[in-house]
């Protein structure tokens, strides 16, 4: 059952071959068995999960089921879920019980899906390896000594090790796509504004976007049908008409124009990864896609721009953690200022503090124009590069990450080296464009991801491109050894 697609699982439930309670129990048993090795889940509540499964079975029996009714989903611990502990991977929120549902959670509840638990993540989604989590690192099931990527590392290994049918993630600079690449599955960051951020704990509000993490493009399409949609409670939510993301999955790719940005194949790309990407491109040529060389001349500025904008927005967003209304409060302090300063010093980890300090610095008196404003201007240049590129092509292809999963601890002392993990993913966040990572093969036994960046609202075409490739390749069905 664990390797079945969402469509197959949905059919099994509809045909009464299995109940949602049985399906949920299967995954709960697997979590019990494998989670101690990989630390994918921070919080579980079996009673709540099984109650949702029972309700789903009733709905299926009553004939009111939707495609994801009864399907067990892992939720990144960044989404508030009413009555569930919601930590965002931080000591600051170690005891926080969400008093309401994020829009994403509401959508899955309305669809009748089962919440299997809250998954591990880098603290406040700040990291590319899941090593900044207060609840401990997550191990890549392809090699337990390596990182799963981040920040959605728990959701990533829950999908890769089949500890859920599918999962949610969020992507501010690559946090869905980079772990999807490093763990060998399909992860989609939608167009900014397509999925509501309501109830999703904020990191960098102008970049944060939720999306699906699943075994295939088809599964991601089914997840998107639940997740996407206008929400007036998110001021940046876009009033885009509802789409059926599965409708174009089976279109032929003949004539699809694919742009290859020369900057994504330049120095810094691992040779083993480059070889896998070249083979994927060859496969797409067989499917009828046509390739054209393009350039994203400002791509190299993505990381500097991101490390101004994201920390600036984070320092603002995280100012709400003051130890007054919720979150950690220090045990001892002399006065109100001392309470703020000690509570925040104790509640935040090192990487979060670093980013708050960078953000505070670039926004401080006298520096705003030189940093924040400048970064917002270059952000437009980066977005304009894509606008120019899409005059020549329908989608853009390249590697998701320059290399494969690295060893735990390898980059923890060097923030800048860690940041370079996201060199190919950040530009899509800055431009607000959708991006997807698809498993394309292996280098030295570790998964490699192919990234497709689409134009605004072109998720259906990207999923079509992913699905067509997954019909003629089987990289997306590969399972890590030791996880059966």
């Amino acid at each position: 059952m664990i390797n079945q697609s969402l469509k197959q699982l949905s059919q099994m439930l509809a045909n009464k071959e299995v109940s949602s309670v049985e399906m949920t129990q299967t995954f709960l048993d697997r979590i019990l068995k494998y989670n101690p090795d990989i630390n994918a889940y921070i919080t579980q509540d079996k009673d709540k999960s099984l109650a949702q499964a029972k309700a789903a079975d009733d709905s299926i029996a009553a004939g009111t089921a939707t495609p994801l009714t009864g399907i067990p989903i892992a939720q990144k611990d960044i989404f508030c879920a009413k009555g569930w502990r919601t930590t965002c991977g931080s000591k600051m929120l170690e005891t926080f019980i969400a008093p309401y549902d994020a829009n994403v959670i509401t959508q899955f509840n309305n669809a009748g899906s089962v919440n299997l638990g809250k998954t591990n993540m880098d603290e406040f989604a700040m990291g590319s390896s899941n090593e900044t989590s207060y609840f401990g690192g997550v191990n890549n099931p392809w090699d337990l000594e390596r990182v799963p990527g981040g920040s959605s590392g728990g959701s990533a290994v829950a999908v890769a090790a089949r500890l859920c049918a599918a999962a949610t993630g969020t992507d501010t600079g690559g946090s869905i796509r980079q772990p999807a690449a490093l763990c060998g599955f399909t992860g989609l960051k939608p167009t900014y504004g397509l999925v509501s951020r309501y109830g999703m704990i904020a990191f960098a509000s102008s970049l944060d976007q939720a999306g699906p993490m699943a075994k295939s493009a088809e599964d991601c399409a089914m997840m998107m049908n639940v997740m996407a949609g206008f929400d007036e409670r998110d001021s940046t939510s876009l009033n885009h008409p509802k789409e059926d993301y599965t409708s174009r999955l089976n279109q032929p790719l003949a004539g699809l124009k694919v742009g290859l940005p020369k900057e994504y194949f330049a120095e810094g790309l691992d040779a083993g990864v480059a070889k896998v990407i070249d083979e994927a491109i060859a496969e797409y040529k067989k499917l009828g896609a046509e390739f054209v060389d393009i350039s994203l001349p400002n791509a190299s500025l993505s990381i500097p721009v991101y490390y101004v904008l994201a920390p600036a927005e984070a320092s603002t967003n995280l100012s709400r953690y003051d130890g007054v209304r919720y979150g950690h409060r220090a045990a001892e302090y002399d006065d109100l200022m001392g309470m703020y300063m000690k509570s925040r010093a104790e509640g935040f980890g090192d990487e979060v503090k670093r980013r708050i300090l960078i953000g505070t610095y670039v926004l401080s008196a006298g520096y705003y124009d030189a940093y924040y404003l400048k970064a917002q201007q270059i952000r437009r240049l980066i977005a304009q590069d894509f606008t120019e590129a899409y005059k020549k092509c329908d989608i853009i292809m390249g590697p998701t990450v320059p290399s494969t999963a690295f060893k735990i601890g390898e980059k923890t002392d060097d923030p800048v080296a860690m940041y370079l993990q996201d060199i190919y993913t950040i530009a899509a966040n800055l431009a607000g464009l959708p991006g997807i990572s698809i498993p394309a093969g292996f280098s030295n036994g570790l998964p490699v991801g192919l990234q497709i960046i689409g134009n605004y609202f072109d998720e259906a075409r990207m999923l079509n491109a992913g699905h067509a490739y997954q019909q003629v390749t089987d990289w997306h069905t590969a399972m890590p050894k030791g996880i059966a």
Partner: protein
Amino acid sequence: MALTIPDIKRIAHLARIEIDDSAADKTLNKLAGILTLIEEMQAVDTTGITPMSHSQDVVQRLREDVVTATNQREVFQENAPAVDSGLYLVPKVIE
């Protein structure tokens, strides 16, 4: 520009994060690398470029000025470190 330990302490104070001398020293080294990275931006001529905050250039939506949220004080206060009689407790700030 090069940051100094007093700079780090000033920024940490603005951010309301307590930091001691040894932590400030370690932080200085890490932040220096990040600021060097950020400085790459300064080589770009951005004269006349409009800053971009949302890819779709959307405008803020307006809504009717009516009450939409219900009072959930008790639920919200269950997460508070210290409350009394429906109030959030903090150290005394007025003599």
